[in-house]
């Protein structure tokens, strides 16, 4: 498609991410909560794009679990393909992309900039953002506070593979008077362990890239890196990887790569 603006929209379970590019540069990126109605979110996004003046001569691709709600999209692509494409554009290396989303965790193998193989978590929320959200609620704090607490704690073991059972493990720690920071550290540790076991099951090849909301938490990145004994690449636009992949899928083949740094 030959247009002035290429717009990628990633409607995730928790947050919706939007990027706008032209044929050379990333022009804009923004993020909003998905809320309870993906159709409303899609409407709010097009409204915002109009206000910003990007709605003329644009092409739009939607991804993420709410992608079918973007009825004005020209293209509909799964988040797996988009995350692969987006991660390759950001990191410019092949290897293994780990994306921890609100309800899905994806492990993607990239070869020659293409998705070669992938694995997603099962129906269960353990090892996803949802798990942290549930536990933060239980500990009466928000995400930021949870990481801060975890940083100063010694991880208690939370071994259950099920979020609901893990929550009862947390409750029994609270009941037995364990320190909040140790429980918080246990929560983060448990997510890292679950993600790593999924990644190892899939097989880790080449460089490891982390995208999604958790890639902004240095504590978590450091923990993952220590457990994997490997450098983990992150990028300031990491949470936009899916939206970037969607936008890139719209550009004519043979286009010059867009500069994201």
């Amino acid at each position, binding site marked *: 498609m030959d247009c002035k603006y290429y717009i990628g929209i990633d409607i995730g379970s928790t947050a919706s991410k939007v990027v706008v590019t032209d044929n050379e540069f990333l022009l804009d990126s923004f993020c909003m909560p998905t809320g309870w109605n993906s159709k409303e979110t899609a409407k709010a996004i097009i409204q915002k794009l109009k206000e910003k003046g990007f709605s003329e001569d644009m092409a739009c691709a939607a991804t993420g*679990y709410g992608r079918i709600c973007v009825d004005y999209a020209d293209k509909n*692509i*799964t*988040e*797996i*393909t988009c995350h692969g494409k987006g991660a390759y554009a950001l990191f410019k290396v092949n290897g293994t992309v780990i994306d921890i989303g609100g309800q*899905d965790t994806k492990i993607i193998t990239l070869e020659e900039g*293409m*998705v*070669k*193989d*992938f694995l*997603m978590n*099962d*129906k269960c929320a353990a090892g996803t953002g949802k798990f942290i959200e549930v536990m933060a609620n239980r500990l009466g704090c928000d995400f930021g506070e949870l990481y801060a607490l975890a940083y100063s704690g010694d991880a208690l073991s939370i071994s259950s593979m099920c979020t609901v059972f893990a929550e009862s493990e947390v409750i029994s720690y609270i009941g037995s008077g364990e320190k909040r920071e140790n429980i918080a550290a246990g929560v983060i540790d448990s997510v890292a362990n679950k993600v790593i076991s999924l990644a190892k099951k899939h097989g880790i090849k080449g460089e490891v890239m982390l995208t999604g909301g958790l890639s902004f938490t240095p504590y978590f990145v450091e923990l993952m890196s220590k457990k994997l004994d490997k450098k983990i690449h992150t990028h300031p636009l990491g949470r936009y990887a899916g939206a970037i992949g969607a936008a890139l899928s719209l550009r004519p083949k043979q286009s010059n790569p867009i500069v994201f740094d």
Partner: protein
Amino acid sequence: MLRLPENFESFPEARKSGFMKMKAHKDNGGKIVGTYCSFIPTELIMAAGAIPVTLCATSEEPIAAAQEHLPSNLCPLIKASYGFALTDTCPYFYFSDFIVGETTCDGKKKMFELMNDIKNTYVMQLPSSRDEVALTMWEAEIKKFWKKLEDFYGVTITEEDVKKAILQKNAERDLVLEYLDLGKLNPSPISGYELGTKLDTLSFIPSMEERCKQLRERIDEVKADWEANYKGKVSRKPRILITGCPNGGVRDKTIKVLEELGADVVAFDTCNSNREKIEKVDTTLPVTEALAKKYLNINCSVMSPNTNRLKFISDMIDDYQVDGVLEIILQACHTFSIESYNVKKSILAKGIPYLKVETDYSKADAGQINTRLEAFLETIAV
């Protein structure tokens, strides 16, 4: 897109219409033996003058009832089989004079103990290897089943009766294979959803003659359609092979979705298709030895080792010009689940994309599966 013939009979429809035919058969004094698995030598049932029928095992409805007796983290096929029996909602179970189970996996063999309290359930002891000792034992089991049928019905089964049944079954296997071979045509003229559904519903038709007639008609129709409308055209649709567990209970959220997303499901390494049909019963050997050999060679993951299956899938990929493999694992099916590690390895080594989906009969994960299948197709560039 999914292509279905105008007179396509869905699985529930076929189950319902077969019921009336089966009732008529029974009302006329006909004999029926219920089975669950392709390891059962149905030639013996036919030789006894009875009709072998595959019993209901692919619906979510009776699972809740089954879980009153069975653990919930068990394979849905086993739970549904038992649940249908317990709630008396499978007409074929109801009409069966007795049930033949088999010790294929742990879940099944222990479930059959409980099923025996509902209806007479005879269990064939299937060994899990293919060496001489196993073959001797399995042949003895086949002789024992022969005797069971004679005692139960008060009839004598002669070697001639069995030979006749072997010839009939071999001919039916050839016809089913010819039907499955339609998947080799490129572009594919028939939906994999139709192929699989048809094979699952065949055993609801009591008359072998009628079964073969229906298959013959459909084969000729599809071949004529291919000659007229498909031949020589190029298709960009990815061609998918299905392997793994029986998929009747999850066909709608896997195979149907794949085809709606623009793929052609063309080949099946599953128990209702090539896996059981490929090897015929050797008519030059003594009958019990011939039956024992044929059935012991079925490439089911309950056999150990089962390396033949890897070669078999690899050959099918070539024969059916396959672009990607979807392995369907039913939740808690340990043998297929463990074997999938080697299946994946051997398929990827061949340079063919592979996806494994583990699921049960519920609709809870339909959305997630949809995304995985869509992403899988996006990775297959045809």
